[in-house]
C-alpha cells in the first residue's frame, strides 16, 4: 500500500498543493482535505507561538498505520498525512490530511478518521507560548 500513502514530518512549511497533487488521480471523483491552522487563542488566552516536538521515528510509524488503516477500512485511493515540527506562528499549518476517492463520502470519512486518530495516537507534543508563559497542551488531565 506504500505508494498510495505519503507520510511526512518536516520543519519546513507544509504545502497543500503537494498533498493534493499526491492524492489526485484520474480515477478519483473527489478529494477531501483537512488543514489544521494555529489559532490566535486557546481558552481565551492569546497564543504567541506553538512549538511542536515529535518522537519522529515512532510518529512516522503511527502515521503510516493510520494511512494504511484508512486504505483498508474506507473505499479510498490515496492518502497524504503531513505534519510540521518546530515553531509555528498564528495562521501556520501544523497538519494537512488529503484523501482521494471515487466517492466523496468515503473521502470525508477517511479524512476525519485520520485526523481524529492522529490526535489520539501519534507521538507529537505541542507547547503553547503566551505573553506570560508556556504550557504543554493536554499534559495535565
Amino acid at each position: 500500500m506504500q505508494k498510495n500513502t505519503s507520510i511526512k514530518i518536516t520543519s519546513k512549511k507544509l504545502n497543500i498543493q503537494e498533498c493534493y497533487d499526491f492524492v489526485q488521480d484520474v480515477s478519483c471523483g473527489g478529494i477531501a482535505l483537512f488543514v489544521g491552522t494555529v489559532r490566535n487563542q486557546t481558552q481565551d488566552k492569546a497564543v504567541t507561538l506553538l512549538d511542536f516536538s515529535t518522537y519522529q521515528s515512532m510518529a512516522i510509524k503511527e502515521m503510516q498505520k493510520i494511512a494504511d488503516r484508512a486504505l483498508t477500512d474506507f473505499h479510498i485511493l490515496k492518502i497524504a498525512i503531513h505534519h510540521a515540527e518546530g515553531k509555528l506562528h498564528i495562521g501556520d499549518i501544523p497538519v494537512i490530511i488529503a484523501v482521494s476517492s471515487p466517492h466523496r463520502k468515503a473521502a470525508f470519512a477517511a479524512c476525519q478518521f485520520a485526523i481524529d486518530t492522529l490526535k489520539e495516537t501519534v507521538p507529537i507534543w505541542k507547547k503553547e507560548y503566551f505573553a506570560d508563559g508556556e504550557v504543554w497542551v493536554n499534559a495535565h488531565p
Partner: protein
Amino acid sequence: MKITLLFFGILKDIIGDTSKELQVTESITVDGLKTHLLQKYKELNNFSTFSIAVNEEYVTANYILNTNDVVALIPPVSGG
C-alpha cells in the same frame, strides 16, 4: 540488564533530559518499570498518566522487557 529510556514533551522538561540508560532486573514488565521509575524519579509522581512505547510500538502493562530495549515515556499527545 540495560535499557534506554526516552523522554518527550512535558516529561523531557520534568526529567531535564531526552534519554537515559538504566539497569533493570531481567524480565521486568512495563508495569514493574513504571513502579521503579516513580520511585527513582519522584517528580514523575505529580504526573502519573503516560503511555509506554518499546522500540517505537505502544505496549501494555504486562509487556516483558528485553535487554537493550528502547523504552519511551509518552505523555498525552497533542499533535494536529
